[in-house]
């Protein structure tokens, strides 16, 4: 399915990153990242495994602390927030994990209820049921409502994972390898779902992937992460219209080999 034209507000920056650095022991993963994500935009971050893509979104969501630089999310510098303020901010950010991270001791219904019940005090049973059913219907998996995560396929788990984040109506979505380990048809379904989420929930998203089909079909803008820095940023065609061997090799492996 071709990506619909989306309305991006270039005057409204929802994520602003400046000079971000992160190292693990002696290994510098991110070496000075600058990034602006605009309201309504889908930004795809491409890079090889271990290039620090997942680290980047973990830093944005406050799961990791940066060594240097600043991350401003929805106007708040996350390294300056206390635990309570960070918790409040996180409700406005949806995080779809690479392995879905569904709570495997809970049914699909309980998985979806969990963030809702805990963050919307005083919500009624009917409101919870309506929200769960509506969001599950939105990802086309209403029939799985009473199933356990172990009974679901990889694609279904991904979609339920996305549904669980959507239940809190996030303003920003962070997708960590949304199509990793899935067959091509399921990948296409997930890509369509990401685009649908962008339109329906008016979200701004960062999509971490090394799947170029996913990048092409979901991204309004693509950033290529190499050696801890964004080497190229622009539209999909602009990024790969280069003589840089490292970028070209990445493209060739995905589309030719």
């Amino acid at each position: 399915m071709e990506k619909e034209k989306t309305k991006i507000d270039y005057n409204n920056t929802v994520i602003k990153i400046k000079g971000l650095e992160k190292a693990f022991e002696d290994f510098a993963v991110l070496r000075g990242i600058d990034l602006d994500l605009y309201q309504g935009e889908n930004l795809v971050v491409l890079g090889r495994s271990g290039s620090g893509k997942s680290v980047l979104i973990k830093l944005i969501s406050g799961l990791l602390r940066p060594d240097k630089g600043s991350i401003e999310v929805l106007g708040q510098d996350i390294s300056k927030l206390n635990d309570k303020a960070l918790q409040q901010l996180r409700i406005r950010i949806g995080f779809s994990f690479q392995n879905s991270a569904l709570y495997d001791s809970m049914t699909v219904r309980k998985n979806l209820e969990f963030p809702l019940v805990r963050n919307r005090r005083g919500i009624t049973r009917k409101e919870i049921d309506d929200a769960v059913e509506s969001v599950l219907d939105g990802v086309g998996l209403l029939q799985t409502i009473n199933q356990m995560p172990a009974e679901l396929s990889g694609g279904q788990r991904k979609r339920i994972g996305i549904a669980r984040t959507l239940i809190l109506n996030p303003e920003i979505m962070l997708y960590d390898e949304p199509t990793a380990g899935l067959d091509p048809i399921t990948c296409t379904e997930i890509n369509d779902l990401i685009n649908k989420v962008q339109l329906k929930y008016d979200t701004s998203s960062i999509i971490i992937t090394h799947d170029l089909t996913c990048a092409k079909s979901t991204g309004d803008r693509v950033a290529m992460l190499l050696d801890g820095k964004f080497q190229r940023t622009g539209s999909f065609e602009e990024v790969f219209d280069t003589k840089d061997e490292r970028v070209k090799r990445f493209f060739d492996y995905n589309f030719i080999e």
Partner: protein
Amino acid sequence: MESVTTRPGQPVRKKRNKLLSRISAFFAEFYQINLFILRFFKEAFVPPFEFKEIVRQCYEVGVRSFTLITVTGFIVGVIFTKQSRPSLADFGATSWLPSLVSIAIMRALAPLVTALIASGKVGSSIGAELGSMRVTEQIDAMEVSGTNPFKYLVCTRVIATTIAIPILATYTAVIGLLGGYLNVSENEGTSYTAFVQAFFQPLSFLDFTASLIKSVVFGFTIGIVGCYQGFNAGAGTEGVGKAANGAVVTAMFLVFIEEIVIVQIVGNFR
């Protein structure tokens, strides 16, 4: 070959460095555990309280260990009585058997056996569950969805083990008493009333209090060790295995250390 050296004294230095790094790792771990315990006290008594989850965890810890505790407690009562009889019979003192059983069960066996069983069953289960949640990013998912995972997962489990294990230890004592009674009654023909009277006669308030305090300490230890190991589990399935194993071994070791310390302290009050 790494061990071959042209400079005498180098292997000795290497060994010393290895030893030093092990010692510093031990103290670093000790510091981390203390921070973890401090965090527990900081977060457990600050609202919002997770009452529903605490009750659910109490059920998991208590009710699900019931069968195992029943069988173990009963066997301990029977075996202890059976093994003690010949020695007492040599002195013609089998009538002291209920008193001996009561002192052994109330002062030492009930809290200790319960704690050891719980270390194996509950400690490993907490370590494995939280370890698996850490490895599969479920704890991160909880955190990014606006829930404090420490409060929800750790505080609830530690409170649950601290509440449930003293109850289980009391139950073990009752079942042990029953096992002891069946053995004594079979061999001596002692009535239940006479047995119970003789059972409680040597026990003081201090014995019950010390036993209760011990169980509370053991329960807290099992919970905090299991949670610490699971919450800080390493990557992959190996990390989960290590967390479960570490939870059992460390909890059992600490239970014995605490037993010695508490017995020494209580001894000063006798």
